[in-house]
């Protein structure tokens, strides 16, 4: 699975996710990637793209939950994403991660596996790509 989230100069957020699904899947199984609110979500608060065990991301409406926690509970982006990945999903045995940014230019890239291919670049050109 691959994904991207962006905040442009006009303050607009967007998110996208694309995947080949899971090896050996049957019966037209669909994961969270094409499900808005599960694997992908963007509004005026934040933008989110997920990767991992899709069934759990669907059942927990993970991508939307990031925005909902920020909107209704006043959580920061990092607080919301860390809790979802390391608390909610971890307790259910779900593995994966997400990338997210908010309207103020904060970013989060939490995952509960040993690695996630990921990277960010900021306005000043500072960038980083990581795997582990």
């Amino acid at each position, binding site marked *: 699975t691959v994904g991207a989230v962006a*905040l442009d100069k006009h303050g*607009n957020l*967007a998110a*996208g996710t694309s995947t080949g*699904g899971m090896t050996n899947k049957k019966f037209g199984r669909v994961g969270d990637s094409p499900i808005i609110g599960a694997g992908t979500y963007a509004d005026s608060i934040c933008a989110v793209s997920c990767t991992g065990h899709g069934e759990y991301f669907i059942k927990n409406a993970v991508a939307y939950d990031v925005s909902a926690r920020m909107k209704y509970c006043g959580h920061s982006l990092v607080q919301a994403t860390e809790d979802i990945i390391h608390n909610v999903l971890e307790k259910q045995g779900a593995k994966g991660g997400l990338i997210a940014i908010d309207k103020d230019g904060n970013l989060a890239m939490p995952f509960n596996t*040993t690695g*996630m291919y990921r990277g*960010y*670049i900021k306005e000043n050109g500072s960038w980083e790509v990581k795997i582990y």
Partner: protein
Amino acid sequence: NKFLFVIHGGAGTITKGSITAVEEQSYKEKLKEALFAGYEILKNNGSSLDAVEAAIKIMEDSPLFNAGKGAVFNNKGKNELDASIMDGRNLNAGAIAGVHHIKNPISLARLVMEKSQHVLLTGDGAEEFASANGIQLVPEDYFYTEKRWQQLLKAREGDKKDSIPKINYINSDYKFG
């Protein structure tokens, strides 16, 4: 005028030693390429949607990632692709699922968002919509990669043994359907 761009290429039990140094470098270079594609768009006053689509297309065109060219095989030995995109300005969204002939699923998802009244199109209907809107379909063998085929064969062996093989199912995008 603050802008920011973040990408991912999937999560799993990727550890030092599970991929070679050469593979690690390949992943980092492709991630960097995707990252800077989005950055250039944003730096030049482009939209967040354009940045997202451009970066994802680069990763879809790479055999390294499980999307587009590098997609895994389903139980029938076919590549089955899904994608979605969302515009934070207005909650517009588009998605496609279960397509077999779309080179860049993220672009079709965006087309669904911008040119249809719907959010999610699947299978043959999604491909019919693509054709009707000028997207050229690619033959299924475009998506063939030996690495993914071998992963499917390994998974099928696991089926025969009626047990889950001792491989990481997320890293290999593996799971019984």
